[in-house]
């Protein structure tokens, strides 16, 4: 899990760099970046679903919707390739999503023994 979080955190600057320099990366590297960033959101979604009973509803729903939208959009970008309008904005949102993944797993409230047994 720590390796996963470190990897997610490394994608934050990478996506920011990609947002700042939209013409410096090739089509293949862009697809790889979007693909990896999308795949890394899946554990967040599965954990949100698995721990839905223990989580505060509103932030969890907002985070889940945000992650689902990004997964759908970036899966499409990964398949279609470069040339998307406001591609820089997508990279900024991906950086935000990776930040939210790290923050969620570090700050997620832990279920208590009472919660597990009840």
């Amino acid at each position, binding site marked *: 899990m*720590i390796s996963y979080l470190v990897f997610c955190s490394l994608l934050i*600057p990478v996506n920011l760099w990609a947002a*700042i320099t939209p*013409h*410096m990366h090739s089509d293949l590297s862009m697809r790889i970046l979007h693909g990896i960033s999308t795949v890394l959101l899946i554990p967040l979604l599965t954990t949100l679903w698995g721990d839905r009973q223990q989580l505060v509803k509103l932030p969890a729903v907002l985070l889940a919707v945000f992650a689902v939208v990004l997964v759908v959009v970036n899966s499409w970008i990964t398949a279609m390739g470069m040339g998307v309008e406001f591609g820089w904005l997508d990279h900024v949102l991906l950086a935000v999503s990776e930040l939210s993944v790290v923050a969620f797993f*570090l700050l997620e409230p832990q*279920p208590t023994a009472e919660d597990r047994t009840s």
Partner: protein
Amino acid sequence: MALSPSWRTKLLGSLQGQLQLATYLAVFLGFTGASSVGLWIGQRNLIQNNAKELRRSAEAIQACMRKGGADDRDFVQQELLLHSSMRTSLWVENSDASLVLPQSDHLEISDEAIQSSMAANPDRVVGRQELIRLGEQLYLSELVQRFSNGARLWISQEVSTNQRALNDYLALMILIWSGCLVITLMAVSSLVRRIVQPLEQLNAATAQVTAETLASARLPLERGPVEVMQLGRTYNALLERLSQSWSQQRQFVSAVSHELRTPLTIVQGYLNRTVKRGDNLTEAQVRGLRTAEEESIRMRRLMDDLLDLSRGDSGKLSIQSEPVRLADQLEQVADLARSTLQRPLHLELPAAVEQRDAIAQADPGRLRQVLLDLIENADKYSPADRPIRLVMREEPEAHAIDVIDQGIGIPEDELNTVFDRFHRASNAPERTGSGLGLSVVKLLVEGMGGSISVCSRLGEGSRFTVQLPR
């Protein structure tokens, strides 16, 4: 209680993990901010500088064209050529869509770049800048000016070289950052390990402290941060005070036991003699005196137990070690026990003669005390008429003696603490003992070089096994 995953406990629950996380965050945020801002400013400067350069060239051309006449094609071509270079191209798009290019044998103008630049601005918006990628090359183009005769001045500059330089800068930054991150984390890990090491020593030392090692247990801290060294000194001072306190308590118990034992013996003797020789006592008086005698015997045995434990703690417990024929000892113990027990006691000796003649290294007096205590314990916690078995058997490494009862048993989670001082099983009836008997038994057995173990089932009974060296 919160149930954190192990990775989270490791990372957020330990001093080492927290410091490593803080270091990672500091390096990570610092570099991410610096690299992103640096890259953004670099990118912006690159584009702005190129745009400024283009505008300066365009303004010079405009000024010259105003002076020399925009209709003179050769003059315009000459002027365009003057400001064009290998990376910068200027051209004029006439109102009839024909182009005036800075043609020269030494200058290659990319038609594709020109066409792409104009295609990127189909509405011919003056001042609009476009970045155009053609293969590996990147061009920055702009429609600079619209003249009164309808002609338009275009300019385009190849910026790929500068982009590549920026790219190299980014790659170098990533390399340096990764190196810094790894080195910093390794350095912090090493530093934190040094800081945490004394705390781990403190933890290990605390885990090993027992009543027996209290006097000798000290935390050997030689190097460490001032705060940790101070904690170590405070801890050692605490151990010293505890050791003194424990020593005084043992001396007190020993002295009190010893002082009480003698008068109790005298009281017991007088009671016994009065009951035996008193010829004018009523039946109720005799019964009362018998009760007083039994209580004085019980109290004296308690004093004996306390005295044994106290001597054991101070290393003054006297235990002999001599060859003992176990079968003889067991027969004597069985006879003694039967004289006081109200239930059957079955003595089971091995059938084989050589096993029956087994010799163990033990103190005969202490061995009898151990077995009588175990039999008394079995009697105390067994329903009436249930027999007690005293079994002698041979094991590969030792001689074993079992005391087996069919009593209330001991809860499984208390089997590990059954030999602790003052421990009484949670299912034991009230007022059935002091909780010292089994701890004295263990002390004596171990003093003879043997060991004792117990297995038990609630409601079915217990088996205490004494193993003695051959």
